[in-house]
């Protein structure tokens, strides 16, 4: 089996700071990490490979530093990595991102046919989850989003069965391969990396392709030019009048709060006839 995993390097949004004066993001405050969902996607690929053999290639689009995200994937157990990095890709929205990644995946596919493509459910910096389905559409393969379990891989028959999360439960879907899955975090726990992987990763140099290394690229579909969406205005969320602060010592604050809450006494009255 040849499994391709799309991975993105993202700023760790848990620690990113906002400058309260300017309302702008202090990006330098956040370390760059491998998108957590993508780590789960690589882990799932490793598990499938353990059962069925084969090869895992990770593909990423980003600045040169994104090599570090690829190294992290090698640690988890990916075999090879490709970074596509070029000014022409900059400013891409999800449509232009899926185009560039598709071109890279097509090139990988020429070297070795692909059975499965995995993506994260979404990237934590943008939270859109649109890139995976976009790639699937461009490659004319079925997308299955929100996968929480790979039930069965029948590599010979070219079929997979997966569990997909829906609002109030899940569904089990079967698809022919190749297909594209986007994975939720609960699909697995990322295992500790074995030492040989760590050693390999530390020295690993992925292939880095510029736009010239890709075939049949329509330059108008790349980067900012290829992105239908643009960011208009940005503003801090509406500040309401703000809370009425309850003053006094703890005891009196609590007393006052309780009387405010009890004004909604119908909330607490026994609902009759139940």
């Amino acid at each position, binding site marked *: 089996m040849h499994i391709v995993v799309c991975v993105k390097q993202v700023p760790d949004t*848990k620690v990113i700071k906002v400058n309260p004066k300017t309302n702008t993001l202090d990006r330098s405050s956040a370390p760059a990490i491998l998108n957590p969902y993508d780590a789960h996607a690589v882990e799932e690929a490793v598990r499938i490979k353990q059962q069925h053999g084969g090869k895992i290639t990770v593909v990423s689009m980003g600045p040169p530093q994104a090599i570090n995200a690829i190294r992290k994937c090698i640690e988890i157990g990916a075999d090879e990595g490709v970074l596509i990095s070029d000014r022409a890709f900059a400013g891409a929205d999800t449509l232009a991102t899926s185009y560039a990644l598709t071109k890279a995946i097509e090139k990988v596919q020429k070297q070795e046919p692909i059975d499965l493509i995995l993506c994260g459910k979404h990237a934590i910096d943008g939270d859109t989850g649109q890139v995976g*389905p976009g790639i699937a559409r461009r490659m004319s393969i079925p997308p299955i989003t929100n996968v929480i379990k790979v039930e069965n891989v029948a590599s010979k028959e070219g079929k997979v069965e997966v569990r997909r999360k829906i609002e109030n439960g899940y*569904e089990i879907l079967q698809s022919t391969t190749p297909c594209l899955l986007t994975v939720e975090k609960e699909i697995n726990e990322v295992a500790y990396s074995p030492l040989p992987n760590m050693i390999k990763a530390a020295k690993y140099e992925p292939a880095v392709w510029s736009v010239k290394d890709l075939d049949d690229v329509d330059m108008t579909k790349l980067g900012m030019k290829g992105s239908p969406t643009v960011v208009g205005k940005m503003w801090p969320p509406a500040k309401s009048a703000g809370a009425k602060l309850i003053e006094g010592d703890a005891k009196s604050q609590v007393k006052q709060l309780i009387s405010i809450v009890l004004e909604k006494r119908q909330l607490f009255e026994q609902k009759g006839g139940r």
Partner: protein
Amino acid sequence: MKVEEYKGVWVFIEQIEGNVVGVSLELLGAGRALADKLEVDLCGVLLGQNVKHIPKQLFEYGADKVYVIDDPILENYRSETYMKAVGDLVRKYKPEIFLYGATSNGKDLASAVATEVMTGLTADTTMLDIDLENRFFEASRPAFGGNIMATILCKKHRPQMATVRSKVMKAIDPQPGRTGEVIQEKIKIKEDDLRTKVLQIVRDTSKKVNLAEADIIVSAGKGVKDANGFKLVCDLADVLNATVGASRDVVEAGLIGHAHQVGQTGETVTPKLYFAIGISGAVQHVVGMNNSETIIAINNDPNAQIFNAAHYGIVGDLFEIVPLLIQEFKVALKEVGGVKTHA
């Protein structure tokens, strides 16, 4: 692409076993306002099997037209079939705006359709408006990493598409007897040509956590620090017979399951009473709860953002305030005869 050829506001109508999901009715409400501003029709797009009874309800909730494809092949949602059907409708009828609920299926479909018809899509929006002068659709959402809202525009491509969170928009009061036009369409796909099959659907109806419908929610943030602090919040919830909510950081710390998370990547809630305890008030949290009737914040930092969103605030140490609240509520609620009776 001739942008002027595209007219009308569309809403994707999601249904489960013949029942329209709430967010679709909410989007008809939001879409009605957009369509009125643009002076165009509001249209529903309804796919499924045995769904012919649904358009009547959609007209009452504000739709002028409903495009219906009723076909066994559409019985269950599948990207493959729905994308094809919706893509064909878009190419044929050319809407200028297209809204989808930000549900699993809504997001899946919108992403696929955006690539299919090559247009822009804004995910998880919380505010929708029209720039009438340019006839642009302004889709706004909390943006990357912090306390910022951003408006996303799609100037040169149509339709302008967005997914919208549940419970953010309001459905209109249904107008009994209001009618509209049903437009039947067909899908030209054979089951044999499809690559995906739905083998089984398992719906968990026992759903224990129902944040979206709770009247009182007591939510914990990272200020609770650990399991002990978290237990305090749970105890308070217990006394009030409330549902426990949490910020993302609390969920990620493993103190409670994701089903309890309130916010952009969790549930959107609208209780009568919302307690935010040890929650800083980041925009991604606030967008999930700021339509609550009364919001009470407890935080030891007087500058915490949460005090901007709250109606009442106590600046203080939760480890002191919450135990007192538990104690005093127990007494006070006995007086109103409302302590729950675990019957």
